[in-house]
């Protein structure tokens, strides 16, 4: 873990990094370093010994049970979470690889079904300033919009993850603290897990030739920090915390709201809880 220590930037630097997302150049080095830590964190447990705790100083994974909440009522579709995630986790900047994304649901007058798009839609990509920065195009400006809202999406870190079930090597596994991670040093890149995930949360990392996905910023949460997307959200639409702690934001979120999960019929039992989503949300 000496290497992890060495790569870990001080907390202040990290917060600075997150607060200056607009200036990618200044933060480039930090992003690279952060990614190295992310890789080390996810690779800390070899598949054959999935029950063994990763050696993260001062962290005991049996003490936490992480959970995530999304309040779609609050989301304004600014997409800072998407940009922060890409930088924090060194995700390819193209519109085909996302650890988190935001969907827009718009119901026009006289229509039954909502029209859905995400920041990766070609129209929205065309309206975005540059690669790695995302915007929702104002495509419904002249339409009679009856209802519209945004829904942030990410890996659901399911209790019964279909991706973990199908992995032939055990390279992807569920940690004691409830996070589904991938051992990038053990994954063979067969993409069976990509097929099995009903939420489209997984993708293939062409740089490393392994599958990749959201880890709830495992490298950050095990240091007492929030996931990057939660930290940058300007409206508090994303909530994260320890479900073992009844006073944590996530426990309060679940207690005080009527929450639901996505595609419960799959039996995956997701651990991302939603408030304010509609029947059309898929």
């Amino acid at each position, binding site marked *: 873990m000496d290497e992890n220590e060495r790569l870990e930037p001080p907390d202040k630097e990290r917060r600075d990094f997150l607060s200056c997302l607009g200036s990618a150049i200044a933060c480039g080095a930090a992003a690279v370093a952060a990614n190295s830590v992310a890789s080390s964190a996810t690779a800390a447990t070899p598949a*054959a010994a999935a029950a063994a705790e990763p050696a993260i100083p001062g962290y005991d994974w049996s003490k936490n049970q992480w959970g995530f909440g999304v309040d779609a009522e609050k989301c304004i579709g600014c997409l800072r979470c998407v940009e922060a995630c890409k930088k924090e986790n060194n995700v390819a900047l193209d519109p*085909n690889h996302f650890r988190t994304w935001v969907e827009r649901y718009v119901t026009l007058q006289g229509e039954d079904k909502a029209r859905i798009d995400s920041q990766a839609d070609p129209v929205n990509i065309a309206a975005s300033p540059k690669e790695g920065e995302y915007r929702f195009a104002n495509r419904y400006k002249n339409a009679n919009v009856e209802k519209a809202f945004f829904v942030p999406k990410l890996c659901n870190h399911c209790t019964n993850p279909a991706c973990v079930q199908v992995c032939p090597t055990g390279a992807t596994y569920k940690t004691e603290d409830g996070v589904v991670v991938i051992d990038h040093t053990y994954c*063979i890149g067969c*993409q069976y897990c990509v097929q099995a995930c009903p939420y*489209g949360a997984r993708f*293939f990392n062409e740089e490393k*030739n392994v599958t990749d996905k959201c880890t709830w910023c495992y490298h950050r949460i095990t240091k007492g920090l929030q996931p990057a997307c939660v930290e940058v959200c300007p409206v508090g639409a994303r909530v994260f915390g320890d479900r073992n702690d009844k006073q944590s934001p996530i426990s309060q979120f679940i207690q005080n709201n009527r929450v639901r999960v996505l595609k419960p019929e799959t039996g995956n039992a997701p651990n991302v809880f939603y408030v304010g989503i509609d029947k059309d949300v*898929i």
Partner: protein
Amino acid sequence: MEALIHASPFTGYVYPNETIVPWTVLIVVYPYLTGLVAGAFTISSLYQVFGFTQLRPVAHFALLISLCCMITVPLPLLLHLGHPERAFNAMITPHVTSAFAIFGYAAAFYIILLVIETWFVFRPHIVQQAQKQTGLLAWPWRILSLGSVDVSEKAMSYDRKWLFALAIIGIPGAHGLHGYVGFVFGSLKSREWWSSDLMPVIFLLSAIISGTALVIILYVLSCKLRKVAVDLSCLKVMAFSLWGFMMFTLLLEGVEFASLVYRGREGIDVIMEFVKGPLVIPFFILQFGFGSALPLAVITFLIWRGTSGTSLIVGITGCSILVLLAVLMMRYNVVIGGQEISKTARGLLAYHPPIFGREGLLAAGIVLVIPMVLLMVLVRLFPPWEKAAA
């Protein structure tokens, strides 16, 4: 990075990560090859186990075809893996809940079984070569004989018992291997197009028809090349098998599709949009029309009319070629088609396979040619005809 990714255009709404289709034409070729293995092995077993003596001229040949295809089966998988050098991780530390983890063991078991069976079949030939050849050329044969040079009637009867036992174990082996490939797809709950209990059975039956068709084509071709007459009774038995298994396959595919439509679960709108749109040519015209209905009609006609001679040979071989293409289309429509229907149930992707590259059409084509090249070599080393005709 740009050159590495092959994003597919879409209509409606698909999850952003879905635009990179995970399983490509190599994963179309993989179940196709395992299907050919199971099918060719079925023909061989019909003779070895079930006493279909009319199949004697092709029994050993079919075994070699099965072996050549099986040796090639891991290749498309290895080519597809992001880290092929780690492929053995699945065998060293198999994750037992994965439908795919046991593949390495199942495949290894079956290859070993095929090699042993082939050795028993060709033992007399190996012994004969070891005695006939002189100098350095004799050595490989001597080594291959493993010191077992007794070809007396008593020894041969002992060999026959072994062959019978191996063929019996091979039947569940070959069919289990392929049925399990169907399970790999059918057990995934994330995709409505794949998620079906009938998938393993349909895979298996279509495997048998593709293997039978391949044996028919290669047998007729080998007869032309060797300038010997095609054994018509042998050809007829294979045509009957093809007809029977095709009937079953078509019925099951029909039942599966009808259930999917009749259940009409969420997402059926987009599935119907897919079926009525992009699937019309590959499925209804190529797979069903030209590849299944036409050969079925032609074979029925040939049998009904009692056609014989060259017309029968041309008719059945032509039908077999169509069947081979139809099963390839079936694999394509299942593997690629399943991924073109978005998990959102609100959109469709249009995957256009690249020609070049590790996962392109050219690579897939080469993978399909390799077993044929292997077969050309093996047939010269272990002629499957003379012994059968003796």
